[in-house]
């Protein structure tokens, strides 16, 4: 199991200073400085190509910044052993593609990889954990199906189940619900939010849907062209002015008694 992390509320999880990153001289993130703290679901929002996924990759240690520093849990992110990071951080990728016909259960079992010795066989506890992850994501009936035969939405739920089996302290979601219908989106977001509130699983989510983000996230980070436009508590930063600045669209933002959160409305440009 992972070492216990600092349980202090508001403790800094990630601290990025002057981070620059690009692919082959094309800058993707420019001078990003931010802090992500324990105790809130953080959403990363922004238009296509604004660097959201790249930022998530940097947080997960999948990419290294060309300049600037990322400190994670008080130590440079790159100094942590990868296996240790894999015990703490689980990533749900945007397009979960599996190339061979592994069964759903086998794919979810892969989530145990960072916790198991190389030749270990999953114990009864591990099996129970897999069953739990399958049940939580509503894919028990699919357990023996080859994952290559599933629909996009079903595959996405397998990816979430695998991340849960990984027992992470922090969950990174890369548009994890974009392929899902509203029923399954809400179900997955509810499940994750529940883990966040009751088991202190920290969440950083790249999201597209502003209204789902408003329901789900306590804090938002808005990115545009690789730069942080604004960040803060959802009630403070989810404003028509910021939406206009980031997406270039006109919007109305109102507190909604039904959702108990702020909700955004759009209209077609006149």
């Amino acid at each position, binding site marked *: 199991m992972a070492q216990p992390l600092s349980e202090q509320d508001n403790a800094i999880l990630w601290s990025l200073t002057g981070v620059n990153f690009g692919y082959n001289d094309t800058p993707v993130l420019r001078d990003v400085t931010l802090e992500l703290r324990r105790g809130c679901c953080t959403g990363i929002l922004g238009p296509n190509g604004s660097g959201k996924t790249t930022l998530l990759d940097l947080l997960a240690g999948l990419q290294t910044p060309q300049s600037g520093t990322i400190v994670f849990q008080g130590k440079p992110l790159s100094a942590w052993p990868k296996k240790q990071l894999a015990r703490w951080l689980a990533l749900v*990728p945007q397009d979960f593609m599996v190339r061979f016909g592994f069964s759903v259960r086998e794919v979810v079992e892969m989530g145990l990889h960072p916790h198991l010795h190389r030749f270990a066989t999953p114990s009864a506890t591990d099996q129970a954990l897999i069953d739990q992850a399958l049940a939580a994501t509503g894919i028990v009936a699919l357990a023996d199906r080859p994952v290559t035969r599933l629909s996009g939405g079903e595959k996405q739920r397998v990816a979430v189940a695998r991340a849960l089996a990984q027992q992470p302290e922090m969950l990174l979601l890369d548009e994890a619900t974009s392929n899902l219908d509203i029923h399954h989106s809400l179900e997955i977001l509810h499940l994750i939010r529940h883990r966040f509130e009751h088991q202190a699983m920290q969440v950083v989510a790249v999201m597209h849907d502003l209204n789902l983000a408003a329901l789900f996230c306590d804090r938002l980070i808005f990115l545009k062209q690789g730069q942080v436009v604004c960040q803060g508590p959802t009630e403070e930063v989810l404003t028509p002015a910021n939406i206009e600045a980031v997406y270039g669209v006109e919007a109305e933002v109102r507190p909604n008694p039904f959702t108990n959160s702020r909700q955004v409305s759009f209209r077609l440009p006149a």
Partner: protein
Amino acid sequence: MKRHAVTGWLLPLTAVLVFGVALSATLGFLAVSIPDVFAILFAKLRGQAMPTTIDPVAATVVADVRLPRILAAVLVGGLLGVSGAVFQAILLNPLADSYTLGISTGAAFGASLVIVLQIFGLALPSGVSIPIFAFGGGVGTLAVVLFLAAGDRRLSSTSLILAGVIVAAILSAAIGFLKFLADEQVGLIIFWLMGSLAGASWANILLLAPAALLGTLTAVFYSRDLNIMATGDRAATSLGVNTVRLRLVLLTVATLMTALAVSVSGIIGFVGLIVPHLLRHLVGPDNRLLIPLAFFGGSLLLLIADTLTRAVLPSEVPIGVLTALLGGPFFCVLFKKRQRDGATAF
């Protein structure tokens, strides 16, 4: 869970393989019984004199001609089967094998080069230089392919396959030119390109056996990481798999395995492609089970094919031709069947 599956398979398959080797050794122009084959094998392995109860000619034929050839078939088949399974798992492509990466073509180029140099009067001893050049050709090709693909820092499977196809195309043209240079003696090159185990010796076995053992164990060691690779680089890295190192290590090991096999037997196609493919169809894609089974599958296939061409068919057919003729149509049927089943991915 899976470990039981592997150990459950291991014993019966070893028994089948040992029996297959013994049975194959009894077949041929001189008839020998199965107990005699075992007696000869044990005497040979212990370095003792042959038992006097056995006809000395038969003993010599079995010990020095049939057994090295049969064991070479088993080991070459196993090497090709395992390396094929590894190539397919790493390149995330069920149709990948040592051809896709240009390794077989590189080895063929090395061997052809020796033959042409001999024709032009260079005194190279075939028995030593063909394996060495074939091996160097295979490994050199991998080095060039890795260099070409390394522009992409993550060494993705698409870059690797593209680089492999490019290098193989150039090498094929070079082999064509060597054939042209060989002129009337082109038959020597062609025979080697079609593969044969007829020249296998005990020295080859001493080379192949440790390679097969170490290579297969390395692949089994990394088999869980290989499974995770099937879910994509990003997901695999986030689960703590060092994808770049895994690719480098396993590509090198699988290349060494292929190049060694090719250096002894010439090019034997379809084993590395069809054995893992078929096994995946039968037992699923889990590499923890697939890789050990690919060794036995490759061994048995090549043992059968070599026994056919050596002892059953009226005259000896190049084994590469036989495996392609047996495997090819079978593969077509499998491919069509999968299309009908509506499976887009394998």
